[in-house]
């Protein structure tokens, strides 16, 4: 949420953050259209199957079960021709840093039997090590499955398939609209910042920079308000009157049913093992 970076060049930094977000947005579908195992499945069976894996990963108290699930995730990625590099960048890297910072100190502070003695009376305890390892393993495993879903499925199909979880149509449409306009606002913001960066003269004080940042946000906000009214009119012009309808063209085949049943069953098996 925040970062410690020296004061100048916030324009360039924001522009680069926007660029990174836009890239992530534009290339999100990159692997969704290549042939592979997950890509060949009905999005609804993927939501049910991979969703069950996330739930199971958050629930189990056995590191062995977590490790098995992680390996299963890797196999799914390989079978779907999703490069592990991409999966690592998307699911593992950011969250690993965060979790490592969080879990690291727990190795020392959690009471338990010391296993490694360090100078100044600091010691790593068995419980501490287990706690840290379990948290990291759990978080990484749980992050793998949503990433597999989103990498192997076009966004709109993911959102539409949420209907299988009884998500109301209106919410699905709101989510889709939001995705659509995130891209537009990102583009607008990017254009704005690149234009400002190219016109920038001299070094600005923090206060001036801040004023510039908030006025850019203001322009974006105005655009948001105008768009929200215009889009409403455009929807109305084509018959929208408060209720909205969706057309779903998914088809469940035997393999989809197999995944939708076998994955949750397999995922919750470890929970029953003592």
């Amino acid at each position, binding site marked *: *949420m*925040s970062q*410690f*970076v020296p004061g100048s060049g*916030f324009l360039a*930094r*924001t522009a680069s953050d*926007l660029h990174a977000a836009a890239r992530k947005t534009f290339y*999100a579908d990159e692997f969704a259209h290549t042939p592979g195992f997950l890509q060949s499945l009905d999005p609804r069976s993927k939501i049910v199957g991979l*969703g069950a894996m*996330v*739930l199971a*990963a*958050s*629930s189990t*108290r056995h590191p062995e079960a977590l490790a098995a699930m992680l390996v299963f995730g890797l196999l799914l990625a390989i079978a779907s021709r999703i490069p592990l590099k991409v999966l690592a960048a*998307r*699911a593992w890297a950011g*969250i690993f840093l*965060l979790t490592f910072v*969080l879990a690291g100190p727990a190795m020392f*502070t959690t009471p*338990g039997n010391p296993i490694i003695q360090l100078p100044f009376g600091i010691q790593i305890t068995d*419980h501490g090590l*287990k*706690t840290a390892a379990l*948290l990291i393993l759990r978080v990484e*495993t*749980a*992050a793998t499955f949503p990433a597999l879903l989103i990498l192997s499925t076009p*966004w709109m199909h993911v959102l539409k398939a949420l209907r299988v979880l009884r998500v109301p149509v*209106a919410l699905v449409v*709101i*989510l889709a*609209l*939001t995705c659509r*306009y*995130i891209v*537009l*606002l*990102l583009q607008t*913001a990017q254009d704005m910042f690149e234009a400002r960066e190219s016109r920038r003269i001299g070094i600005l004080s*923090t206060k001036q920079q*801040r004023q510039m940042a*908030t006025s*850019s*946000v*203001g322009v*974006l*906000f105005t655009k*948001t308000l105008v768009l*929200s*009214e215009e*889009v*409403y009119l455009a*929807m109305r012009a084509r018959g929208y009157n*408060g209720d909205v309808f969706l057309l779903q063209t998914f088809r469940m085949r035997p393999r989809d049913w197999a995944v939708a049943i076998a994955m949750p069953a397999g995922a919750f098996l470890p*929970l029953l*093992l*003592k």
Partner: protein
Amino acid sequence: MHIPDGYLSPSTCAALYVGAAPFWYVAAKRTNRLLHSRLMPRISLFAAFSFVLMMFNIPLPGGTTGHATGIGIATVVLGPWASMLSISVALAIQAIIFGDGGITAIGANCFNIAILGSLATWGVYKLLTVSAAAGSPRRVFAAGLAGYVGLNVAALATAIEFGIQPSLFRDANGAPLYAPYPLHIAIPAMMIGHLTIAGLAEFFVASGLTAFIQRTDPTLLGNATTTEPQQTSTRRLWMVLGILLMLTPLGILAAGTAWGEWGASDFADPEARKQIAAASLNAPLPVHPPQGLAKLSSIWTAPVPDYAPVFLKSESFGYMMSGIFGVGLVIFASQIVAWIVRRART
């Protein structure tokens, strides 16, 4: 601040989904009535705005930069209810599409940021802008401070949820299963960053945008677009919330048994059977060979009076009470604010 999957136990996540549900319901009802079918694009666009806003590095005094969430400005312009929906949608998109924040934690993140954050922001903003004109400089400061408080309330709620994990969820040897730090570490660790950097970014964005709106379209700061709670139509909501508030800790505590996480052997223990049965609303259980269930006894409680003594002695009960107290305080405070605002108007 977005909680990933695996930091909170599934039962805590479930409890927070349940806690968020009535707010979402009432928010959808209220905003729908006020904005009619404009609601759909408006919520989406504000959610998209909040999303993009998080990419903006706001330069702060001292040479650092921070990101704002938009909770401040969304509440000031849209009112607490529509803001709740918009920020929830933004959080859901972040979790589902971008992997920022967990899928199982969507309820928790929405409860903390979108719901508690909007309510706290609205309370502070209303309190400070009693009888202030749309163009008054007081609104600029009020919006900033409201955003600051809103974000920090959200961070505090997140810290409390992290902090109660180690006392509620441990394995057989006592090692924490989820977030490992108790409240006295989790709260300062979360709050220092938010009270300084993230909170300030929120302050500057909310106040800067409010000043911007005053120059460009001050009608947005009137009541034309906001959906503020009114006593008459929300009394039922507060009642439902009150009941829920009483039930929620029971839900979280009952989860102390980690509902759905008990091993196969637990089914056989008569004590455990009774407890599981109570937690499962007395649904019949399958029979299995008996075994011990000591790990549950210290933190177990159920909505049955017989168990109350154990429940009161439990250490986690104290933690829970602080959580309920916090939530209750936000609701109570917003009621007080609503009362003051009404008084000032008449």
